């Protein structure tokens, strides 16, 4: 630095000296974020990608890998056509759909009503009850399936998808209720008071005000209930051994692994097909889920 180009910082030490750059810090933060996100995306997407690759290979290619296994040399849809034309696989799919639709319906009816009562109707013990609902969610299903086996057996519902419809809500209702309590609690109290004065009874307040306003929360809870039910593995493994009552998750595994023979191509194709409904549900409802409907309810 030449003396003639003295800047104020040189003349007055400590005044106006550059002690860091906001722009540079921001750039580093972005670079770090991008690197982490790319690594995370690769880690997350590698298994589904490998599933897709494998599902497009013939059994011969799977059992005789030449070179890298990440490339398909001889792509085929045979695994998919075999599965789709197999009535048993279609049965698994159908069972999963029936169980999931019913579980989501039962869960949402119970948890919306329960959450509304717990969030808005102050009654003796409502606080304790709300906490209790959440605590039940903390008990893992791997602990619950033994006593539940007794109950389901006692009701003569072992080896039946109706047994699953009965037990899945034990997982989904507490969590969905908890989500909905939070959502309902965020709706301003004046909204119910306005509805009360407008002439609404509790049921009308729920159906005409709370449910439409809390729609994003309800959709979030629905997605959760759907995921719990569609992806359940422990309960059907424990309660169902008859192939015609099996849902997809265990059907694919139990029927495509015979002894020590793994039908890898079909296994992967089945897993991918099973993963499709959740992907579609998420893709369609995500925007709805994120969009805040409550904006403008009160002072904005």
């Amino acid at each position, binding site marked *: 630095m030449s003396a003639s180009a003295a800047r104020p910082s040189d003349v007055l030490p400590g005044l106006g000296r550059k002690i860091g750059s906001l722009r540079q810090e921001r750039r580093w933060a972005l670079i770090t974020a991008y690197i982490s996100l790319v690594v995370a995306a690769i880690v997350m997407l590698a298994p589904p990608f490998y599933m897709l690759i494998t599902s497009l290979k013939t059994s011969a290619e799977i059992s005789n890998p030449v070179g890298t296994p990440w490339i398909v040399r001889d792509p085929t849809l045979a695994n998919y056509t075999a599965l789709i034309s197999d009535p048993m696989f279609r049965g698994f799919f159908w069972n999963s759909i029936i169980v999931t639709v019913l579980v989501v319906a039962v869960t949402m009816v119970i948890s919306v009503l329960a959450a509304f009562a717990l969030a808005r109707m102050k009654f003796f013990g409502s606080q304790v009850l709300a906490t209790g609902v959440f605590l039940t969610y903390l008990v893992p299903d791997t602990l619950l399936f033994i006593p539940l086996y007794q109950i389901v057996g006692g009701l003569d519902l072992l080896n039946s998808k109706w047994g699953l419809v009965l037990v899945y809500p034990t997982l989904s209702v507490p969590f969905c209720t908890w989500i909905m309590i939070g959502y309902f609690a965020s709706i301003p109290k*004046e909204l119910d*008071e306005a509805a009360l004065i407008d002439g609404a009874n509790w049921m009308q307040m729920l159906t005409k005000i709370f449910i439409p306003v809390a729609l994003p929360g309800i959709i979030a809870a629905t997605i959760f209930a759907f995921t719990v039910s569609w992806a359940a593995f422990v309960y059907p493994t424990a309660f169902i051994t008859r192939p015609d009552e099996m849902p997809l998750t265990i059907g694919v595994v139990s029927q495509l692994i015979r002894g020590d023979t793994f039908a890898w191509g079909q296994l992967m194709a089945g897993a991918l097909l099973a993963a499709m409904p959740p992907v579609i549900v998420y893709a369609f409802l995500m925007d709805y889920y994120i969009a805040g409907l409550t904006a403008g309810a009160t002072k904005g």
Partner: protein
Amino acid sequence: MAQVNIKKVVKEYEGGVQAVKGIDLDIGDKEFVVLVGPSGCGKSTTLRMIAGLEEITSGAIEIDGNIVNDVPPRDRDIAMVFQNYALYPHMSVYDNMAFGLMLRKFPREEIRRRVENAARILDIGPLLERKPKALSGGQRQRVAMGRAIVRDPKVFLFDEPLSNLDAKLRVQMRTEIKKVHQTVKTTTVYVTHDQVEAMTLADRVVVMNHGIIEQVGPPQVLYHSPATKFVAGFIGSPAMNFIPARLEQASGALNVRLSDGALLPVPADRTARYAGHAGREVLFGIRPEHLTAASQMEARPGLAPLSLTPEVVEPLGAETLFYCWRDGGEICAKIDPGVAAAPGVPLAMTADMNRMHIIDPATDKVL
């Protein structure tokens, strides 16, 4: 159209806290009554008890002659406007206004007629299809009022409806509310903590403090004849000055002696009123607007000279306020902007003794 009668109403919360301590109030048909007071004075609780949103601990509330203590809000035939508007966010402006009528199973044509009529009164016709989030604060407030108007209820209840608006809009909406009341002439109970709002809107103002009613009366009566020190200090802006003083009798005349020796003669027509308190310590109450510079006043009976030394001067344009401290208390005076006032320079002032108040410090009552 209806009367509202509040009889010995008490509201006690769990834990024994009394928000409202046995108030009596009769609100006439078509009357615009404003409940005003500081936060926690029980004004909102009173309004919510009229609405049926709070239960009454004891006493009775009558609407149109019927006791409504146990009547749910929907059957009281009232409409309420909330501070945060409480519009239904998922409904259009039209549906927000029509909701109450739809629940009451009004014919579709009648609903449309009423909503359009209210929209015309409030000038929100072009907004009917919009959602609340697409409206400004003032527009939302109008919709909230429209929701009340379409119901054509016996009583309108307003809970601090203008508090969320900016100062300019507040003044504008205040006029709107008054205009609407003059058009629809519905009995109205209005809660605010803003005494200017209370004074400008009300037929009668109810000043509340600590769960009791301090005074009820038309705005001018509250201003000129406050009953208590609280009302005297709460109504009027800037607030009334309270100066510790002594009532002294000397040769048939009564004087207010300030602690620094200044002697202010009590007007002859008031001597009889205060005679019983001669020789006692009192509070001398005078509004800033009645403390004026001697140079701007023509001499007339009842004006007492007084010297004050401004310490802080606030020129507001139309008038100038100055503050000085005396006996540990602040004194505010309102003078003509043409009067030269400078901090530290004593100013010859006059106190308009015809407008002063004498307060008994033991009871806080205005004598």
